[in-house]
């Protein structure tokens, strides 16, 4: 079984792979120190891992257990992610280097020619 995980999720998995089964509270502490995430953010990511089936939780203390092994985990390829990202409405309250819509290949080669002609 191969499971595609985001960087954030891989970070949580990494903690579980090295530390073994860990209570969520402890994961949040480690993540805060290692990655700088707030407790809420870490819990959000744990929830995503649970939904995906990458980890399991055991009571008491919300102990998390890695279902997916290091070998089974795989990074998401960026193109897939981007397709996901643009399904929704774009975020207009940030400053992004490029527009959030994509250009066609023809358009991009036209822009390249434009730069050449103006140089």
């Amino acid at each position, binding site marked *: 079984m191969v499971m595609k995980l985001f960087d*954030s999720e891989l*970070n949580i998995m990494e903690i579980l792979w090295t530390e073994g089964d860990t209570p969520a509270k402890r994961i949040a502490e480690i993540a805060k120190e290692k*990655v700088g995430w707030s407790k809420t953010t870490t819990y959000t990511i744990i929830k995503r891992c649970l939904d995906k089936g990458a980890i399991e939780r055991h009571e008491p203390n919300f102990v998390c257990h890695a279902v997916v092994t290091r070998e089974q985990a795989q990074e998401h390829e960026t193109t897939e992610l981007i397709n996901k990202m643009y399904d929704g409405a774009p975020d207009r309250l940030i*400053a992004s*280097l490029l527009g959030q819509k*994509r250009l066609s290949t023809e*358009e991009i080669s036209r822009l390249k020619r434009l730069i050449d002609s*103006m140089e």
Partner: protein
Amino acid sequence: MSLLQISISASVFILAVIFLRSLLIHKLPKMTFMFLWGVALIQLLVPVSVQSQFSIFTAAEHISGMYTAPKVISAPESSTFINGTTVIMPPITEHVTAPIMPLKTASQISPFVWVWFVGFTMCALFFIIPHLRYRKIYKMAVPIRNDFIRKWQLSNLLWRDVQIRQLDYISTPLTYGIFRPVVLLPKNLDYDDEKQLALILTHEFTHIKRFDTLKKWILATSVCIHWFNPIVWVMYILANRDIELFCDETVIRKFGENMKPSYARALVRLEEKKIGLSPMISSFSKNSTEERIISIMKIKRITITTTLLAIGLAACVVVIFATSALDKTESATGVDEPIAYSEPSLYQGAITTQIVPALSQGGTTTDLMPHDLTFNKKYDVPKLIDSLMASKYRAVYMDNEIYLRVMMDNTVQISKDNGAVWKKYDTDEVDAKEFAKWLLINDPIPGYSMKEVQTRLANGAEVKHLVFENVKEMYFIIDRNGVQIELVQPEKISSVLIDGQRMMITSAISAQMLKSFYDLLVSNHILSETLAEQDYSERINYLEKNLPNFIVTK
């Protein structure tokens, strides 16, 4: 000033900026447009507080009010006879009506305000919901271990703590957060290309230094408030582009002009990285990218000439369009408008009295004036006012329809059956500042010291407002010195009142009515019977002697 009027007057300026931009976007330093958009935002956002929008954004009501409220009274043409050198004026029974523009009160929320509010809320959610959703994702970014970035950041310290992190969900570098900004870099960036990294980081740090995220929030706010105005939307799109162009310009100036092609190519390369077949290719972003590339390639060294040209043009646009728009706004405000409309009606009054120079020497001009008679507090009615202040009441009013009294706690009671049953009436609160302005312009009732009233209003007097079925209105100015009633009557009717300031008789009054008024004072234990008799005859004497037309005998 209504929101609609603000929007319209600002649109004039925005259209001028759009025009200037279409001609000179690649010629002038981008700073020029940032400045002009800033002026537009001030026009759109500053003249109103949220509260005043609610109270005045009753656009249609307002406009219809402007056109219908001042009743133009036809001049009594037949009333003037010229008899040799003497002008004889028949007693006037139709009186010139004071121009009236009812002041809108906070409690009247028209359907227009609701429509606006719904639009505003939807628009705000349109911006905020995606942002909050993405923010959750941005928080999941991980630290970057890259020596070049660490070194670069150490040599470019800002006073705000800036974090640079990596996120695999995004395809383009971005900056979010206003006070604790975070730069997010996509995972698929070429982290070995240090030249490109430096360009990207300089670009993002320029955004941070300039508070461009805050600018975007303010732009979004303006578009939410003015959602009904397409010109403001166009401004929103163009100003957002100009934020980017200004940022590019700064990066190029920092790295030198020969970096222009590399920078433009870097942008196209990053654009290329986003590729993936998507049906959502917008021609609008195509145009904006092209505009951006051309703008980068055309960046020139700023010379004294271009600086002066930019300053001159910006100043011209602001002076011509922003100020004229402001003037327009001023005269279009609900408060000012009645002047324009009331003037004709006043002039009609003046036309009938054109022959007055001869007449006024006869000293009977008073007959031509609206028959408002005020007994000044200091000289004429001190006893009466004192008795009033010693009683349970703060003001008493009477006309042919109602009796009204203001209690010590400033509540208003009205009787419609000549004082047999009194019922408490609810009043609206009116903003004292708005009222002061309105009063200054409309001056509905002569016979009080404008200066004094304005001082009281400025010193925090409260203003309450009451509207009767027949459009008659009353304003109660209340402070520690007591109550002062201002009447607004679309048609002049006979009335008499005493309040903490003066006794006033409006329009011709019958002796009978004046008598009833004194009876009312007696029944409310304000005056004793003897004092009332005495005062009544003094009043009648005064009127008969000085204003023979004032008392209408049955």
